[in-house]
C-alpha cells in the first residue's frame, strides 16, 4: 500500500478522524471546505501531530501513537505542494528550487535540476523573485521545489484553487504527467468534483 492512514485529532470544536488505505497513483481526499482535509495532509507531512492513530507510506511508519513513533517533517521525505505555493520570498526561483535538493541525500535524488526545469517549463523564471510570478508560474515552481527534494511521495493541497481556468488546465496536465510518468504516490486534497474525477486513481470522501 502507498498510503495507510488512520488518524484522529481534535482541533478546536472539530474532531477530525480519517481511516483509509490507498495504492499507487493519485489518491484524492475529497470533501467540502472545513472537513479537515488540509489537516490530514499536515499530519502526514508531520506539521500537525495527531492525537492518536498511525500513518505509514510505502510500508514505512511515519507516525504511530501506540509505539511512540513521530518522525519530524524533515525526515519524512514528503514533497508538499501548498495551496498558496509558499515560495520563500527572500530567495530567487533558482534558490527556491535548490533549497530541498541541496538538503536531500544525493543517492536518493531521482530527478535532476535541469530535468525538472524542462519538465515544468520554468527555465525562463529561474532568475525571477517569487513576488513577480503569476499564480500558475508560482505553482509550477512550488511543484518543482517539492520534486527536487527527493520525496518518496507528494502531498498536494488544492494546488489549483488560486488559479484561473486556463492555468488550472495547464497545471492539471502537469499533475497528470507526474502521476503517470514519474510514478510517485500522490495524496491530493480538493473540494472540486470535476478535478478529482479527472485526476484521481482512488477517491477518499471526507466530511
Amino acid at each position, binding site marked *: 500500500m502507498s498510503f495507510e492512514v488512520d488518524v484522529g485529532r481534535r482541533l478546536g470544536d472539530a474532531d477530525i478522524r480519517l481511516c483509509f488505505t490507498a495504492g499507487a497513483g493519485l489518491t484524492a481526499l475529497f470533501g467540502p471546505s472545513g472537513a479537515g482535509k488540509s489537516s490530514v495532509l*499536515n499530519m502526514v*507531512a*508531520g*506539521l500537525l501531530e495527531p492525537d492518536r492513530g498511525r500513518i505509514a507510506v510505502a510500508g514505512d511508519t511515519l507516525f504511530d501513537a501506540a509505539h511512540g513513533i513521530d518522525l*519530524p*517533517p*524533515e525526515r*519524512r*521525505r*514528503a*514533497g*508538499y505542494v*501548498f495551496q498558496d505555493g*509558499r515560495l*520563500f*520570498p*527572500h*530567495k*530567487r526561483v533558482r534558490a527556491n528550487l535548490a*533549497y*530541498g535538493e541541496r*538538503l*536531500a541525500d544525493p543517492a536518493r535524488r531521482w530527478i535532476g535540476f535541469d530535468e525538472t526545469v524542462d519538465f515544468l517549463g520554468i527555465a525562463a523564471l529561474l532568475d525571477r*523573485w*517569487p*513576488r*513577480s510570478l503569476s499564480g500558475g508560474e508560482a505553482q509550477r515552481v512550488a511543484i518543482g*521545489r*517539492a520534486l527536487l*527534494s527527493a520525496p518518496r511521495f507528494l*502531498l498536494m493541497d488544492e494546488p489549483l484553487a488560486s488559479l484561473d481556468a486556463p492555468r488550472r488546465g495547464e497545471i492539471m496536465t502537469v499533475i497528470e504527467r507526474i502521476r503517470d510518468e514519474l510514478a510517485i504516490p500522490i495524496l491530493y486534497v480538493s473540494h472540486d468534483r470535476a478535478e478529482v474525477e479527472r485526476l484521481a486513481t482512488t477517491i477518499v470522501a471526507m466530511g
Partner: protein
Amino acid sequence: MLLSPDEWEILRLSLKVSAVAVCLCLPIAFGLAWILARGRFPGKILLDALVHLPLVVPPVVVGWLLLLAFGTNGPAGRWFEHWLGISFMFRWTGAALAAAVMALPLMVRAMRLSIEAVDRRLEGAARTLGAGRWLTFLTITLPLSLPGVVAGAVLGFARSIGEFGATITFVSNIPGETRTLPLAIYGALQVPGEESVVTRLAILSVLLSLAALVASEALSRRAGRGGHVL
C-alpha cells in the same frame, strides 16, 4: 581636519561606547525578542514589562540601580571583577553598560515585531523540504527578520550615542573614559564662554544621528530587495 584633538577623542569614545553597547545587546535583545514573540509561558507579561522598564523609568533611576548592582560593592560588580577582571566604575565599560541597558527595550521591540511578521507557514515548508529546526531558523526565519534586526541595531546605536542620564549617574563625567558627546556638551554648557564648543559638538551629534538613520534605511532596503516588506 575640522575637529580638534579633544573633539576627536570625544567622538571616538562615543562611537566605541555605542558600538560595544550594541554588540553586547544584539544577541540578548534577539533572544528576548524571540522569547516574547514565540514563547508561551506564565510570567511572559512580567518579562515584557521588565524589558521595557528602562524606556519608562527616569534614566537617573536606572543609573542608580546600575550603581547598586554593578558598583564596586554591588553583587554583579564584584562577580565581574572577580571572574572576568572587568570593572565598570568610572570606566568606559560602565558607559557602554549603561547605554546597552537603555538601548535594550528599543532593540527588543524592533526585533520582536519583525520576528512576529515572519510567516510561520514558510518555516513549515522548509521543514518538509528537509531542513531541521536550526537550519530552518538560519535560512528562513533569520533572513526574513533581518530588516527588523538591522533597524533595531541602528535604533539602539542612535539611542546609545544620545545616552546621558544613566551614564552620568552611574559612571560620572570623566574625560577620555566616560565623557561621550552628550556629556561633553553638558560639561561645556557649565563653563562660561564655551558656546562655540557646544555648537560644534551639537552639530556633530546631529550629523552622527542622521548618518545612522540613513545607513539603517539603506541596509534594510538592501535586505528587503527580495520583495518582503517589514
